[in-house]
Structures are given as structure tokens and as C-alpha cells.
């Protein structure tokens, strides 16, 4: 249940923006409510798999995010092209599972500098995205856009932490 609430955060925020035109930190209220739900539902959370996998996922997410952020902001490639390049390279050189994690991080790196002002914040959000990928196994399985939703959740959580912009 708590995983579904976490995955729904970007959709809730988007719906609120559509209906009320809420901006930036105004989302905090929604996320606070979602957080309450998480605490309520996730008290029984336990991570049963290898912790090294979790750390690997976090690092790969961070790497994907930082590379795309750097490519899109420094080289003026644009976020779409930058994420495509990183996705292709990841699928070429990494195992399928790891390429998916790097691609999740790449989505985070597509954030604009107004949302994630520095490469460090992009890296932090990418780290969250990698963790989410590992923890959210089985949620929305087979749904295209699942990785992007995780990335959006990670970015919103980073904004909420006060590290991001807006």
C-alpha cells in the first residue's frame, strides 16, 4: 500500500497543479499528507534483499542523473537527447537491470536548473531514484512510464527536502 502511495505522488501533484495551479513548496502539504500515509502503512517495512544491491542502485541512479544533467546543461544537447544518449550507452554496456536503473537516474537529470539548481542536487535526486527503483520492485510492473514516475517522485522529494529550487 505505502509503495502505491509513494508512486502516486507525482500524479497527485500534477492533478493539484492542473486544478488549483499550486506551485513549488505549496506541494509540501500534499506530500506531508502522503508522508503520513507512508508512515501509517509502512511501519512494517523491511528490506529483505542484499543491501549491496540497494547501494549499487543508488550509485547507478546518481551517475545517470549527473551525466544527463551535465550533458543537457553544459553541452546544450537538451535533456531529451542527453537522456537518449545515456540510455543507449547504458543498454550497450550494462546488464538490463542496471541499464534500467541508470535510465531512471537519467530521467531525474532531465530536470531544469530552476528545479534542481546544481549538479549536486541532481545527484542527490538520482540517488533517491536509484533507491526507489530497488525498493519499488513489483509496483506498476510492466507499465511504461514507471521509471519516470519514480524519477518524478525522487525529484519532488528532493524539492521537499529544501535542496531543490521552486
Amino acid at each position, binding site marked *: 500500500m505505502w509503495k502505491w502511495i509513494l508512486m502516486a505522488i507525482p500524479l497527485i501533484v500534477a492533478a493539484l497543479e492542473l486544478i488549483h495551479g499550486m506551485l513549488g513548496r505549496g506541494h509540501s502539504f500534499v506530500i506531508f499528507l502522503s508522508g503520513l500515509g507512508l508512515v501509517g502503512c509502512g511501519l512494517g517495512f523491511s528490506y529483505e534483499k542484499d543491501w549491496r544491491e540497494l547501494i549499487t542502485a543508488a550509485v547507478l541512479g546518481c551517475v545517470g542523473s549527473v551525466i544527463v544533467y551535465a550533458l543537457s546543461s553544459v553541452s546544450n544537447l537538451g535533456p531529451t537527447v542527453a537522456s537518449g544518449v545515456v540510455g543507449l550507452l547504458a543498454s550497450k554496456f550494462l546488464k538490463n537491470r542496471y541499464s534500467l536503473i541508470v535510465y531512471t537516474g537519467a530521467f531525474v537529470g532531465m530536470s531544469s536548473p530552476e528545479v534542481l539548481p546544481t549538479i549536486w542536487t541532481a545527484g542527490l535526486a538520482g540517488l533517491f531514484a536509484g533507491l526507489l527503483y530497488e525498493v519499488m520492485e513489483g509496483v506498476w510492473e510492466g507499465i*511504461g512510464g514507471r521509471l519516470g514516475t519514480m524519477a518524478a517522485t525522487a525529484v519532488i522529494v528532493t524539492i521537499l527536502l529544501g535542496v531543490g529550487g521552486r
Partner: protein
Amino acid sequence: MLWVSFFVSIPAGAFGFWLRNHRGLSSVEVSAWIALLSGLLLPRLHESGIFLAGVCTCVSYATMSSCVRVTNQLEMAVVSVLCAVIVYGCRACLVGVGGRLGTFAALAVLVCCGLINVKRRIFHGHSYSQSSGNAP
């Protein structure tokens, strides 16, 4: 602009579905190729090219769906149209947030799965999970 986006989203979805199911490319490869090509070509070909590239990229994320969720080209076309409508309708939502297009793609796939489920319940009297072999 919405109508134009259908003309790029449907072929992008069909191309992605074909690559994924008939050429054996991984989901990341398919999505990355479509995102890369649309990001490079469309802004140079059309005045609304950046928006159209966004639509194609959103569709590319939807093509990452498994063949259990999106089973044929017709369903992929429906998902592609939904992606275009959602990207157009929600262009003021989650601006600048990474993963925004993926979220829209997920919404489109979920809506499509829901519509298929409703259709099957109405016309065939059984649910999506039963038809996909997950029934007890």
C-alpha cells in the same frame, strides 16, 4: 498542435512496439532510440518541434510497457493518442521536474489498461486479470 501531435505519436508508438516485439531490442534501447531521434529531428522539422519531441519521448516511455499490458498495435495506438492528449493537457504541470513525461506515459498506459478492462467486463463478462492468465 494537438492534432499534429497525433501524427507523430502514433507512428512513434507503432515503431517502438515493432522494435520491442519484433526486433528484440530491450525496453531501454527502444525508448532511448525514439527519444534521441525525436529530440534531434523534430525541433528542426517543425516550429512546434520541441513540443512534438516531448510527445514522442512520452510515447517512447509508454513503449517500455510489457506485452501483457499493451498487447497489440491497436492498444499501442490508443496509448500513443492518450500520451499526446495528456502531454498537451498537462503542459503546465510538473514543469521542469524530471520524470514528468514518464509520469504522463504511466498515466496513459494505466488509463488504457483500465479502458480495456472495462471493455472486457462489458462485452465479454470477465476481467483483465482473467484474460491475462492470472486468474486463480
